[in-house]
């Protein structure tokens, strides 16, 4: 493992890779700071540019964006009370009151320190867990892989925001979209509607661009008129002393722990981790009444948790091919687009890329820290700009992202259609990330189920042959029944 990691760092330290990681982190901070633009959208914008790159540089750029957006979201949360990302909402609770008290520089300092610390903590956990989990995952058979993928889908549906029913419906729509085109085993057309363009299925990049790019632009047009009234005119970051930060060990240790663990659970994402950390720290505080009025622990806990999810999400993504959130779902898509097969075999077939990504994760955290310190004035300047300038550019880049995937116009039309569809689904609370996951994991589930059945002479009992499979089926059944039970309880309460 150590050898691989050293190799990963060596690859990252190549000047071109380092430059891309730096630029990605810079872009991430910028995008994260802008309410309405999110990490998945920033990665979508980068898609056309990354096609021409080798897999590792392309993924390093995305890792930089992913890490950068985490801290960027807190800038607007602290200075505007309008979080740039959903996970930044929790930081606004105490960050904004601190800024109102004239401590904006210190609040930004706590956020920067905590983000860096959270990133490092989760990185250590990720590099420790990934080789161990991949070692086990590599021994998986087709039946195990199919069950892991189904479990991932159920977990995302269960833990994502909104009801599980909506999550499941999103997943099923994604699975149907993923089954379009020529069947991999029998080479028979499915859902092609007589179109030659659909023979190879729905272009994956088009689904990403439509659901995470166009859908968000159409939805966020309602934010177009929102103005950015900054609470302060002092735009600098004042780092707290190391002693002061260490004194807040409870906040950063809880944030780091929850962020890393929850980040590894598919579907929960950073916002779940930040709120849980904030609530836990507040409940265990000697002075819980200070929270919400400018308590630094209220900035440290969610920011540590927010960045700690970056390492957590890498664990299921790099070992099992199951994304922890929307951004990692796109990164899985990028792995496909670059000819790599995400999943249990990735560690075997693309170990160089895996270790490079892990090394890049740590380096992006370091870049994030120094870029934030050096360029805060620039980010605040951008924060004050009207979004009417940004959205047309986003649309051009997203369109090119869809076009460049096949060098054809067809994916662009698909992306526009899915963008409109995704917009309506999101408006009614169906998380589009579940659709994307269905598209990603659907073919994996079908292929591995069929191979597993072929090996087992069409005996479906092969899926309960071993203890790990029984446990996985148990988890799936438990999650489904638990959600049904919760739904019935909610209905009972609402009737009362």
């Amino acid at each position, binding site marked *: 493992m150590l050898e691989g990691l050293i190799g990963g760092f060596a690859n990252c330290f190549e000047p071109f890779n380092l430059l891309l990681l730096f630029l990605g982190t810079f872009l991430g901070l910028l995008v994260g700071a802008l309410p309405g633009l*999110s990490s998945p959208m920033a990665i979508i914008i980068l898609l056309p540019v990354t096609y021409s790159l080798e897999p590792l540089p392309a993924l390093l750029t995305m890792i930089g964006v992913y890490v950068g957006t985490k801290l960027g979201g807190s800038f607007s949360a602290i200075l505007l009370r309008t979080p740039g990302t959903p996970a930044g909402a929790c930081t606004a609770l105490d960050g904004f009151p601190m800024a109102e008290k004239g401590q904006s520089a210190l609040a930004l300092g706590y956020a920067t320190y905590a983000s860096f610390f959270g990133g490092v903590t989760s990185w250590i956990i990720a590099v420790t867990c990934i080789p161990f989990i991949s070692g086990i995952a590599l021994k998986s058979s087709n039946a195990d892989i199919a069950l892991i993928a189904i479990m991932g889908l159920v977990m995302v549906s269960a833990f994502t*925001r909104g009801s599980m029913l909506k999550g499941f419906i999103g997943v099923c729509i994604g699975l149907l979209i993923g089954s379009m085109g020529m069947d991999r085993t029998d080479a028979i057309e*499915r*859902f*092609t509607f007589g179109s030659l363009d659909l023979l190879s299925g729905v272009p994956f990049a088009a689904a990403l661009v439509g659901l995470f790019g166009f859908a968000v632009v159409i939805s966020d047009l309602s934010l*177009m008129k929102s103005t950015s009234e900054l609470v302060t005119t002092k735009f600098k970051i004042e780092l707290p002393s190391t002693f002061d930060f260490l004194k807040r060990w409870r906040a950063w240790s809880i944030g780091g722990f929850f962020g890393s663990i929850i980040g590894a659970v598919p579907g929960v994402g950073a916002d779940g981790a930040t709120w849980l950390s904030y609530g836990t720290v507040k409940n265990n505080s000697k002075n819980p009444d200070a929270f919400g009025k400018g308590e630094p622990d209220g900035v440290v806990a969610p920011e540590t948790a927010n960045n700690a999810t970056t390492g957590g999400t890498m664990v299921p993504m790099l070992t099992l091919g199951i994304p922890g959130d929307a951004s990692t779902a796109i990164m899985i898509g990028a792995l496909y687009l670059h000819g790599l097969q995400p999943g249990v075999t990735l560690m075997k077939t693309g170990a160089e890329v895996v270790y490079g990504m892990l090394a890049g994760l740590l380096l992006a955290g370091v870049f994030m820290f120094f870029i934030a310190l050096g360029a805060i004035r620039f980010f605040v300047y951008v924060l004050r700009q009207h979004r009417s*300038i940004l959205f047309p550019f986003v649309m051009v880049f997203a369109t090119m992202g869809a*076009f460049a995937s096949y060098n054809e116009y067809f994916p662009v039309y698909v992306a526009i259609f899915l963008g409109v569809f995704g917009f309506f689904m999101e408006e009614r609370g169906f998380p589009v990330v579940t659709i994307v996951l269905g598209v990603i994991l659907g073919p994996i589930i079908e292929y591995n189920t069929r191979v597993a059945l*072929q090996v087992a002479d069409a005996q479906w009992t092969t899926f309960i042959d071993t203890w790990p499979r029984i446990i996985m089926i148990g988890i799936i059944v438990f999650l489904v029944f638990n959600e049904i039970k919760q739904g019935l309880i909610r209905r009972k309460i609402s009737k009362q």
Partner: protein
Amino acid sequence: MLVTDKKTKEKKSDIVKDILIGFIILIISVGAFFTYNPADAPLDVGTDGMNFATYPLGVASLLTLLGLIYLANSLIKYFNLKEDYSFFNYLIQSIQDNKSLYFKRLSTVILLLLYALILGEINFMLLTSSFLFLGFFLYERRDYFLMLILSLLGGGFSYALFVYFLKLPI
């Protein structure tokens, strides 16, 4: 930023949207049964306990079941709510209240479609500059000189990046 947990009490107007979505889901799922096999391949292909149709039909069945639950749930909510509601009045009122936003959304989709349709037909730089300018205009910027400069710079940058450096066959 898109999905928000709505804690406020649901209104009939929202539930009607859910009912419509429920119908759309059912149209998709039921439609899948009729369109999964455009080549009219025989169903006995494959001897491994599954054939090419098992998976899409299984998913379509599950989606139909979930869609029915969702629709039934929404209908029950609709009939349980005691609220004066007229779909057409609400629709007209909603359009009047959000005229500008709906116009922007619709125009954005049309603009995107036009951009996609014309892409490759005329010079990419010119097309992108025009698209950006129209986009700025649509999103209510009226500082024409700045809009023009930004559009031209944006078009030029896009041309340099996508055509010159990335060599996309646009």
